[in-house]
């Protein structure tokens, strides 16, 4: 992941927001969607994505559907009711964070 330390804390929020917008998605699809939206700037690795998805599933934020697709099994993830509420809360937290960061960093950026 590019600038991994900056993005690390937001990975689950990114995944949950994408699932909120797209309904259900599978792992590879999530990585490609993030790459597409950020025009290749942000790449989520398998090593970061799957443990995060499994953690969210264990917490009851996500539920899974398994389907046979093209000779193999595909695990789709989608938000649960709890997950939908949680996404709204996390997005609000992220917005606060961005606002605070802008307030802290913007004056310094303007002077550069």
């Amino acid at each position: 992941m590019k600038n991994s330390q900056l993005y690390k804390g937001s990975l689950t929020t990114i995944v949950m927001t994408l699932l909120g917008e797209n309904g259900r998605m599978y792992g590879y699809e999530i990585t490609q969607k993030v790459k597409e939206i950020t025009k290749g700037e942000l790449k989520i690795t398998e090593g970061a994505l799957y443990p995060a998805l499994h953690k969210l599933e264990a917490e009851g934020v996500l539920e899974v559907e398994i389907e046979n697709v093209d000779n193999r099994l595909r695990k789709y993830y989608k938000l649960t009711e709890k997950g939908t509420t949680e996404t709204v809360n996390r997005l609000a937290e992220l917005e606060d964070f961005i606002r605070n960061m802008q307030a802290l960093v913007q004056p310094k950026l303007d002077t550069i």
Partner: protein
Amino acid sequence: MNLSKDEIRFIDTYLLSNDVVYTDIRQEMVDHIATAVEEKMSTGQNEFYPAFKEYMILNKKAILKNNKKQWSFSWEVVRQFLLFLFKPSMLFFGILLFFFFKKVDVNPYFSESFTVNNLFFVLVITLALFQTGYVRWYLKKRFYAVEKAGNILMILYQLQLFFLPIFGKENVSVYTLTLFTFLFTGYGVYFLKEIIKFNRHRLNYI
């Protein structure tokens, strides 16, 4: 371009030979790699093996890192178990247990030849054998979703060795008896809950 069954099996065998032993984890990785290889094959690289090799050279480390994370001891599993124990129904059960042990003195039922420690040891062995039997003889495949709870049983085993008297006929306090009966019963129920959750997808996996 979709991969054939043999090509999918090739990826599965490759992952298995790289120690991705859990079927549920492997199946998700197989789909990830297969989708990426199919994409490569539809945008230039027409042959399966070169496309697979090209993809794995770049991504093998990240993919197997995902497996290592699943393999290692997970605090997340312990956290989920603790959250389960703190559910109102479980706490109510714990309170009932406390009053039961307060009212009924079970210490006379134990002797030097069969201590309370022996009882919990038998419980650990029974639970462990049930889990092993379920995986080896019933499922016949390894699943992380089933085996992950084994870590908790190991911790409970160590705890009972530490807190319960191993030798002699020492009386065990109401608090210790309540705590360990609560933990072991809680574990049994938690494991069954996990099995029920797993069984909702089992037919898909197998």
